[in-house]
């Protein structure tokens, strides 16, 4: 199927806002977003990803991918304990973070007149794992750096969300 050419950028902002809010509230860390870009390949920008489908007024999906170093910092902050490896607890946390970003974004989208629901997220991990958004629409990706005293903004430190929403 041919790719559609555009996706409304206004629909992306709630996901950016939600990501910033979730990290600030639950992990006590400031994230900083970069401008969205079109993602045209399936390989995730990270070592562990949460993916959640969106249905309702439109359909689409959200994924959140973290490099190992970054997700260990985030979950250590959430738990108040140092986490040292990507294990089942980290994967569970990625699922819950994805769930919260989805919920928070859908709440803002509702105020914009778009009602979306989502199910329980799935989590994928491993070097160079792939994410498949089932869509003919463009996938927009936004990378974030974390301000942890020093910025986690280098190669293998930034995390990425990918959003795809099909317009009516």
């Amino acid at each position, binding site marked *: 199927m041919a790719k559609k050419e555009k996706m409304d950028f206004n629909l992306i902002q709630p996901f950016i806002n939600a990501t910033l809010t979730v990290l600030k509230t639950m992990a006590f860390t400031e994230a900083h977003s970069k401008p969205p870009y079109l993602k045209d390949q399936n390989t995730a920008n990270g070592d562990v990803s949460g993916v959640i489908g969106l249905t309702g007024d439109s359909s689409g999906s959200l994924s959140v991918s973290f490099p190992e170093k970054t997700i260990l910092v985030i979950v250590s902050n*959430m738990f108040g304990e140092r986490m040292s490896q990507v294990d089942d607890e980290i994967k569970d*946390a990625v699922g819950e973070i994805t769930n919260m970003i989805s*919920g928070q974004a859908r709440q803002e989208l509702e105020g914009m007149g778009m009602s979306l629901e989502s199910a329980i997220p799935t989590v994928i991990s491993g070097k160079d794992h792939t994410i498949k958004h089932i869509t003919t629409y463009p996938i927009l990706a936004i990378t974030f750096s974390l301000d942890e005293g020093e910025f986690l903004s280098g190669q293998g430190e930034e995390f990425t969300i990918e959003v795809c929403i099909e317009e009516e």
Partner: protein
Amino acid sequence: MYDDFCILLVDDFSTMRRVIRRMLRDRGIENVIEAENGKQAWKLLNDRKIDLVICDWNMPNMKGVDLLELVRSHSQLSALPFVMVTAEGKKDFIEHALQKGATGYVTKPFSSEELFSVLGNIFPGEAK
């Protein structure tokens, strides 16, 4: 502060149970038991005395709102304080939960202050 309370935390994500448990512990509340879904929680509610349920919405094996409905229809549990803590922040979800008898509603993500603000409204005699 919430002396002798037993709180039942119900969430399919161990992360959220751990985060909430930490928030409770920081306020001196140690007597917390956990369930991964509504079915497990229902068994615990029938086996022992629980003073407060903090429950997620979306879970496999019985959603939070279905557990709430069971609790409200049970002769001895019908007045049990039941707080929904969920990523579902849309109006219709909140209205639905309150209509089913939720005592409080907290939308994820949330701070310890937000959680204890809701708990303080339910138990006004306890320290915030």
